[in-house]
């Protein structure tokens, strides 16, 4: 399980693209990069997962450079409802337990 570091907070405005970068310098070969979103008074929600290069789904894109020591979550055209805490994790896929270690996360505030 690699330790991750991400900004504590970020501000944005509606309609802008938001990029949240996470560093995971000691990522291991078996580690995937995974992002979760958490709204107040709710449990975290899985957003996206990737191993290398680029992954895109209906919610976000995830960019992972070749050295995999960092990754960037990209949220296109954010709205007020994207205000949440975003967690970057690097769990080992295929591990015996699959448990997740959450860091402090990035609190994204989207303003009108």
């Amino acid at each position: 399980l690699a330790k991750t570091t991400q900004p504590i907070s970020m501000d944005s405005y509606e309609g802008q693209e938001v990029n949240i970068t996470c560093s995971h310098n000691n990522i291991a070969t078996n580690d995937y990069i995974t992002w979760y979103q958490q709204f107040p008074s709710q449990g975290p929600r899985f957003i996206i997962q990737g191993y290398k290069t680029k992954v895109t789904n209906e919610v976000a894109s995830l960019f992972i450079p070749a050295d995999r020591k960092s990754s960037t979550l990209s949220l296109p055209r954010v709205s007020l409802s994207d205000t949440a805490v975003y967690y970057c994790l690097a769990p080992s896929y295929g591990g015996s337990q699959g448990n997740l270690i959450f860091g402090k996360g990035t609190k994204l505030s989207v303003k009108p």
Partner: protein
Amino acid sequence: SAVISQKPSRDICQRGTSLTIQCQVDSQVTMMFWYRQQPGQSLTLIATANQGSEATYESGFVIDKFPISRPNLTFSTLTVSNMSPEDSSIYLCSVTKTSGSAEQYFGPGTRLTVT
């Protein structure tokens, strides 16, 4: 995906008492976990609930304080024993559908206040 419910959604308890939190999943899952989240803080893993055997606890958490049961593939309970105000927190249940998967589904949480 998986739909997870927790009971109770919130409770206020007196110190020295115990509370059992239930986690129910709408389908069979491989792994079930219990987390704790202090207000404004990140999540801390308490333990992995193992079906038919003792739970696996993380450092700083012990069975006497947080006994866990998992009688089948869709249900688990977490008991917070001999509560103190420091146990006031949100307790979350999560599951994975595939062993070793990083994609976890979380319940809505149980907000516990100990007075």
